[in-house]
Every structure is written in C-alpha cells, then in structure tokens.
C-alpha cells in the first residue's frame, strides 16, 4: 500500500511543477488548464471513490502549498472531485475509455465549480461570476484532450504493486 502513495507524492511534485510553469503560461481564452484536477479525476475514474478521494486530498494538500488560498482548501475540493469521479463510474461494471472521458469532462466542470464555492465558504468572495462558465468549459475541453495521458499516468502511479522478496 505504501509504495503507491509514495509514488503518488513523487508524481504529484512533477504534475504540480507542470501546472505552475507550462500550464500557467498556456492560457487558451485566458483560462489555465487544470492538470492537478485532471490527474485526481482520472484516479477516481480508474480506481473508484476511496482512492479518488484520497488522491485528491493528498494532491490537493501539496497543491495548497503553492497556491495563495488557505492551506487545506484545495485538498478538500480535489478530494470531493476525486470522490465524485469515482461515484460516476461506480455503477458501470467495466467502463469503456469513452465513458471515462465523459466522466472526466463532467467532473472537471464540477471540480472547477467546487473551488469558488469552497472559497466563498471560507469568506473569499467574488469568484462566482459569469466568467465561471467560460472557465469550466475551457477546463473541461482541455481535460478531455489530455485525459488519455492522465488515465495512463494515474493507472501507473496508483497501481497496487506488492513488493515481493
């Protein structure tokens, strides 16, 4: 069990680094693609509610340390997004790739809505605007484009490999 989570921490360091450098610069229509959110949702879609939630909470906690918002906020948001992704796929016995991609698109929209809602809950107002519509659409499209890579990466990262001697 420990190996997948330590692998997750290492992978997340690089995912967050990509998010704060390349994906902070590339802003189609002025919106930054959310790579960390994509990875968490892909984990939920691949491995179910519990793993999705845990991945979101751990990845969010790491991401929190580079964001200016209160530490712990993104952790809760991504935990919820990961769990939602797991729930969407829960009712299908063997979801196809396309079902996973659709689930990623839906959860990307929800994840981007959870964040300003959580900010409003802790008193950081002003982000629930009409611009949110543009943000969720662009983030969902970007996440759909990168979803095959994210699914593969999360599958490799969270694979339950038992160490044998």
């Amino acid at each position: 069990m420990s190996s997948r989570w330590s692998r997750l921490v290492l992978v997340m360091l690089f995912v967050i680094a990509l998010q704060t450098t390349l994906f902070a610069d590339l802003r189609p229509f002025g919106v930054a693609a959310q790579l960390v959110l994509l990875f968490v949702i892909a984990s939920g879609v691949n491995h179910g509610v519990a793993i999705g939630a845990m991945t979101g909470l751990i990845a969010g906690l790491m991401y929190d340390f580079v964001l200016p918002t209160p530490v712990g906020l993104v952790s809760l948001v991504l935990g919820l997004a990961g769990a939602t992704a797991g729930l969407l796929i829960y009712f299908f016995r063997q979801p196809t790739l396309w079902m996973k991609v659709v689930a990623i698109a839906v959860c990307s929209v929800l994840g981007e809505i959870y964040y300003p809602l959580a900010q409003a809950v802790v008193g950081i107002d002003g982000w629930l605007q009409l611009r949110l519509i543009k943000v969720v659409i662009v983030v969902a499209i970007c996440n759909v484009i990168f979803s095959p890579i994210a699914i593969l990466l999360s599958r490799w990262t969270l694979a339950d490999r038992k160490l044998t001697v």
Partner: protein
Amino acid sequence: MAAGQSTRRRAIILLVLTSIILITLDLQNSSAISGLRSVFGVVFRPIESTTRVITRPASNIWNGIVNYNNVLDDNDRLREKIAQQEGATIAAAASVRLSQELLALNGLPTLAGINAVTAQVIGDSPSNFSQTIEINQGSESGIRVGMPVLNAAGLVGKITKVSTDRSVVMLITDPDFALSIKVVNAPRQATTTTIARSNAAVPSPVVPVEPDANSDSATVASTTTTTTTTTIAGFTPSVTTLPAAPSGVSSITVPLASDLAVRETGVIEGRGPTRQPTVRFISNALRFGDIQTGVPIVTAGGSRSLSPPDILVGTVSRVVERVGSAGPVLEIELVADLSNLSFLRVLLYQPITEKVAP
C-alpha cells in the same frame, strides 16, 4: 479486503480533518503554516525551476502561435505612442522634479525617497480563481508582506507572500485586494489669482485674473518672465515660483481655495480579471461635487496604509450613482496593463505602524 477499505476510510477521515484544521490555522495567519509552506518550497522550487527550463520552449512556441499578431499590432501602436509622448515626457519629468523638490522643502514624503527593488515576473497564478503573479525577489532583497508593487505606469498590486528569493504579488483585480485611495476631483472653476510682490516686506494687492474658458492653460506674465502652466484635468494646479527679477520683483501664481482639486478618500476593491475594480465609500459630500470620468485615482497613504501616498492607480471610467446617502460607486480603469507584466518595482515601504523597532 474489508480491512483495506476500513483503513482507507480512516485515512480519508484523517485527511479531511487535517485539511479543515489547516484551513482554520491558515485563516488565523498561523506561523506554523508559513513554516510548512517554506519547507515545501525548499523541496519544490528546484523541481519547478527545472521544469520551467525544460518547458520554456513549449511556452515560447505557444506564445509565438497565439500572440504573434497581437505583438505586431502592439509594436506599431507603441511606436506611435512613443513618438507622441517623447515631448511630453521631458515636460512631465521637469514637473515631477519640481513637485518632489517642493514636497521635500515642506517635509512631506515623496516616492523618490523610498527605496525600491526591481523584480522580474516569473510566473502567473496556476489557478483560475486567484489573481496573483510570482516575482524573482524575496526577503533577501528586503521585501516584506504588504509592500506595494508598481510598473512604469502605476500601481500593480501588493506583496502577499514572501520566501527567500521569491514573492507572490496579489494584483489589484483580485477580489481580495483592497487599498485606501484618493479621488482627485477636478475643481468646479478654473480661475487663478496672481499675487505680485514688489518685495517681501510690502505685499501687493491681489489681482484677479479672468478665467479663460476656451483654453486649458493659464498664462502668467510679468515684466521679465513668462511662464505657461498647463492644467491637467483633475490635478492640482502647480504653484510656480518665478526667478526673482533684477529689480527684486517676483510673481507667484496662487489658485483660489475653491479652484483647488478636491480630494476624497475611498477604498479600491478588485472584482476579478474581467471586471474593472471599483471605489466605494466615497461620501456624497457637497464639497466633492460631481465626479467626472477621467479623474485620476491615487493612493491615499497615511500611517496605517500599506502604500505611500500619490501612486497613480487609474482613472474613473464610470460613475454608478446609488440611491440614498451611500454615495456613488466608481469603476476604475487601471493605468497598468496587468495582462502584460514583465518587470516590476517593489517599493520597500512599510507604514510607521508596521515598522519593527530596532
């Protein structure tokens, strides 16, 4: 299997509780959270720097594809603007120098007396829900939380987080941004009074000058010197002391009290990247008169303000009247272009109330 699920459930509950505790601590500005951020920064910065170097070509390709036409248009527009402003800059520099000398003579604080650090923008906010940028100077350069950040045009934001060699700047457009400002409303009339002195001991009578409604400039003439003062809408007419004439006659142009630009204080608040910041709490006092679009907004300063006075913030683009005694809300067009920031200046300014005694 059941044991594994139980462990995961416990881990999730533990992580959720940890997150809630961390949010609570961070909202209380706990130093433990700052320490955790610093520790994470030590581990994360080298990885981020390496990633930045590796991904730079991809960023450049993207910017080349997306922004090429905009850059060409901007170049043409800026060349035109430079040509227009070359002459005005010389006159403005002279006025600024004169203003600073006068402020220094009267013992008033000026921006020229505040040390500044030049910094380069190294990153945008990775989130879509915060208006921040990262700069490449930190506490090593004397930067502290709260210090104002400017570019060549005017105020850009303030420092919100500082590490050893980096800082995070919250832009004016962030909904969390608030700063006390002054609205410099234009005078209702444009009359000036000339006081001519034959010598210091014997004052001459006040000679009113008829207002010139067709012109923006007032001309003061004496037997020896002619000075032309250009009145910029919304700014206090400058007080010019002419050099003493050979006979000892000097002339001072003094605006009437009613002609002086009226200043009222308010608070500027950001409203996100797509909406202009607003100024609230401007009392609808009679002395203030009607607020005109185009009047300048400058920082108010004061012992509790995080910013020194008279940094240009923007101009009023729209006045939204409100019912009752609440006063109008002003929408502000910022002078700084926040979408295209590269080099910034951090004023190493702390209000007296924030300074730590040695």
